[in-house]
């Protein structure tokens, strides 16, 4: 089921601040989209607007090209999982899951036996066999999360909306439930929108990442494009550690202000003028000295190993910057005469130079 958001505007109640500032988004059928951004960027607000939980001042939400005017239009077609699960504490797990079916009008409601069968199916799908009779208070965080998912999926919706669903889980459970969720999305053929402030989680699980900042969508791209061509300095920084170097483009070459950084050729079309070069710590390299007389002015101090990279800190004049090399690199150049940042992306006034 495809989702389309058109020019959504939502003002903060009583204030003129724009929580959503003319947001448009197209999510094709079967996509897994992650909404990321710092807190207060409007991710949750957008998700709630898509679900119809909050009224917007203008704009529309379309589901399979049909405009949705109220929550009622969406009932049963969208599953929503809340950050704190929002299970019904006085009901058993089975009753929680069956809720969406139990409240259907009598004419449409499946028979009791059918509902029970559906609940059993979902319990199995969520790896919660035998938990149907328990109350939510007796479950662990990960189990509650899966009950919330099962409840959201009970009516067989084609769309799944998740609001920071892993926020309260410990790191190990988080990782396993993440890949399991992606599997679930693929098996059931869902269209999923996930809100998270954890960019790694987003990169790992989603096909498309929508970066939000101050109520606007800054960039909407695949994880790869996002890494290669971040639209703004903010996106570059948000998606992972980045180091920036100020400088100036002259005759097709970027001349960094720092003399220890080697000038490099910029892509065609970048006009002369001041720029900011931003680069990931693992994309930099240290240049070897070419003769015995060269002064070794750069030295990287080892700071341990993480995620397949050796981490170093690099003293560059007054600055200390991070510097990573892959673990399997045979002999790492940790001393040298200058820093090579030719793989940088260039930004001018915060925007990527095209």
């Amino acid at each position: 089921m495809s989702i389309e958001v058109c020019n959504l505007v939502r003002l903060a109640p009583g204030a003129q601040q724009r929580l959503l500032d003319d947001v448009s988004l197209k999510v094709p059928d079967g996509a897994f989209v992650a909404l990321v951004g710092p807190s207060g960027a409007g991710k949750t607000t957008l998700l709630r607007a898509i679900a119809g939980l909050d009224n917007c001042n203008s704009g529309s939400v379309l589901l399979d090209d049909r405009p949705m005017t109220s929550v009622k239009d969406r009932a049963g077609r969208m599953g929503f999982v809340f950050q704190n699960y929002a299970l019904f504490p006085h009901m058993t797990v089975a009753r929680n899951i069956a809720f969406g079916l139990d409240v259907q009008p009598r004419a449409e409601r499946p028979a009791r036996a059918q509902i029970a069968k559906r609940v059993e199916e979902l319990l199995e799908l969520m790896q919660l066999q035998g938990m149907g009779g328990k109350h939510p208070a007796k479950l662990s965080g990960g189990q509650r999360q899966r009950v919330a998912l099962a409840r959201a999926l009970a009516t067989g919706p084609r769309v799944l909306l998740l609001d920071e669903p892993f926020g309260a889980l410990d790191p190990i459970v988080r990782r396993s439930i993440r890949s399991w969720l992606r599997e679930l999305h693929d098996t059931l053929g869902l269209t999923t929108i996930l809100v998270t402030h954890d960019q790694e989680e987003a990169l790992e699980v989603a096909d498309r990442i929508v970066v939000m900042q101050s109520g606007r969508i800054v960039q909407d791209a695949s994880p790869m494009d996002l890494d290669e061509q971040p639209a703004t300095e903010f996106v570059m920084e948000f998606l992972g550690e980045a180091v920036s170097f100020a400088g100036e483009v002259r005759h097709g070459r970027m001349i960094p202000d720092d003399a220890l950084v080697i000038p490099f050729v910029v892509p065609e079309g970048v006009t002369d003028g001041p720029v900011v070069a931003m680069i990931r710590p693992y994309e930099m390299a240290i240049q070897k000295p070419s003769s015995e007389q060269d002064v070794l002015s750069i030295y990287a101090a080892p700071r341990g190993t993480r995620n397949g990279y050796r981490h170093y800190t690099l003293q560059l004049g007054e600055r200390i910057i991070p510097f990573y090399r892959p673990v399997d690199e045979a002999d790492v150049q940790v001393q040298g005469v200058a820093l090579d940042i030719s793989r940088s992306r260039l930004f001018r006034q915060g925007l990527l130079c095209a």
Partner: protein
Amino acid sequence: MTRYVVWVASWLFILVVLVTPPALVLTEALKDGLVASLATLSDPDAQSAIWLTLRVSAVAVTLNTVFGILAAWVLVKFRFPGRQFLQILVELPLSISPVVSGLVWLLLFGAQGWFGPMLERWNIHIAFAVPGIILATLFVTLPYVVRTVMPVMEVQGRDAEEAAVLAGAGFWQVLWHVTLPGVRGALLSGVLLTTARALGEFGAVSVVSGHIPGETETMPLHIENLYNGYQSVAAFTMAALLALMAMSAVLLRSAPEWIARLQEKKA
């Protein structure tokens, strides 16, 4: 040492202030023996007073429960202009003297009141009749359900309700299956407090009732009437009965805790 002093002092205080009065009422009632005491209850005026009190309380409790739940829900779940004011207004009956609460109704529906003469023409009697007593009791007991339910609803939050709405539940289904079960303890507490207050209300009712024995006399009014007529056994028997009814309502408040404890023992 200090601990024991405080302990003894608090028990003494409770004994003198809270336990002695009902005990004295009971002794006075049984002064001529149980038979004589019970006989006073078979008096037609006494019976009519008991029935009237039960009827008035039933109506007041029902209405205040239904509207109390809705008022609490609206006050907690929505932010709207005038919300603060409404919240203060709900507590008004707690701060106003019951006599004043009664007078208001006379002012509106009495023979010289704003609507009194008009209603009189259609032969509708409110002041000095049962509807007036119900109105006065409603007014006095209004805050209890709202005030006990509101804080619990506040804690409950909106998420579960929103989840229910997204699952396709309508307004009444959300209220019945999600909101109310979440506040049932507080709700029971509020209902029983309302009951206790409705049973015993004297001031407001006294003003609007007109004290017609056998017609508009509730139990508290009847007790006063009997006492002023030097029928002390009858007065204290009725008083003991009223106290018993109110106390059992208050005691029932802790019933959910007992039930929960029993269930835990079983599990």
